[in-house]
């Protein structure tokens, strides 16, 4: 498989991946604008809301869950279908599976940490600690991000 060959030889650089992620975050900011315009402060307000009204706390919880699902589905659906999100497409990087084909479950697993920055940073510790090209969840889902710039060099 051509992708396998590229993956073995040319994993995407960290800066390419960060740039792609920032582009995706900007796009998601637009997608989530209607929800964000509800003026929600997820941390302080949730605790405050719980003390004020259970219904309000429930609404905040539901909105937090929906926001997380939208983020999760954006990355998982697109990576499952095309191997790329908008950010990855623009940065010419791609997600590939070490298995024959990346399932939707694999895509969900590798992206589940993206629902919150703290989870994502924890997930990225593998890159810093083990000098690996994979986050922890990428390791468990048998997926990796490769650079498509390498195509011309091969």
């Amino acid at each position, binding site marked *: 498989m051509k992708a396998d060959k590229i993956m073995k030889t040319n994993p995407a650089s960290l800066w390419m991946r960060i740039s792609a992620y920032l582009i995706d975050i900007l796009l998601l900011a637009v997608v989530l604008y209607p929800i964000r315009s509800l*003026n929600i402060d997820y941390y302080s307000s949730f605790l405050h809301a719980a003390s004020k009204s259970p219904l*309000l706390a429930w609404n905040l919880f539901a909105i937090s869950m929906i926001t997380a699902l939208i983020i999760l589905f954006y990355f998982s659906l697109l990576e499952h279908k095309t191997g790329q999100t908008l950010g990855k497409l623009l940065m010419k990087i791609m997600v590939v599976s070490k298995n024959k084909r990346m399932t939707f479950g694999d895509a969900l697993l590798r992206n589940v940490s993206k629902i919150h920055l703290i989870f994502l940073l924890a997930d990225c510790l593998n890159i810093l600690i083990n000098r690996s090209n994979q986050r922890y969840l990428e390791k468990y889902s048998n997926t990796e991000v490769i650079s498509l710039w390498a195509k011309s060099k091969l």
Partner: protein
Amino acid sequence: MGKIKTIIITVVLLWIIAYSVSLFVEIPDFEDKVAIIPIENTITAGALKSPVQQNVVSSSKIIEFIEKAEKDSSVRGIILAINSPGGTVVGSKEIADKIKNVEKPVVAWIREIGTSGAYWIASASDKIVADELSLTGSIGVISSYLEFSGLLESFNVTYESLTTGRYKELGSPFKELTEEERSFLQKKLNQIHDYFVEEVASNRNLKLTDVERLATGEFFLGKEALELGLVDYLGGKDLAVNITKELAGVEDVKIVVYEQERGLFDILSMLKQDFAFGSSLKIEAR
């Protein structure tokens, strides 16, 4: 191109979901608020009469605003920004009754004028703030209408009417009041006047005899009203906000003003009101 199409479809679908969620879920502002409800112009119990007649305020609308402020848990207190000479008896009473049942602190802030029915409303609040030059008081009832019988006579027009009750024609603009009718009407006004005085005395914790003494229809400047016990403080908006904050036990608040928005539907419904018929006799606390 296939990939871009997939990305666009996914993004649009996710945006639609986010937008739909924002339409159905309401997250109230968590900031503590004080709601200012303006009560301006003549108070009436009904809807506005005409789109161009901007000088009346409906008691139903004011009550709707009070209920909205009551339901909003972030609203910690209500300020009634009064600038009204009064209005109909029932319209004023409806608002005053509503205020008495509000659990949140209510402060009346009398601006230029808060007399008669508007003062009745203010008296139902927990505290009253007025400017030293505001006009207030004027506790009394008035009933008036135009009477055209002389005009008809000068044009040699005769007014004929058949009625079954002795007082059925009371207030008709086409005939003069008889002594009996005048006495009947005065008796009713006195009853309303007594009720008004009792309400003010009870709301303000004043002696009934003291309020009766003041209830001559005379208006008082804010400074005089303070000495007579008709208002609690002399000041303006800032003082009203500070007193509300103190009564509510909060320090920082956001001020929100509840004002009536008029759309095309409101204008059309007001036009419809112009074609309604009714008695010309009005009894007002103003």
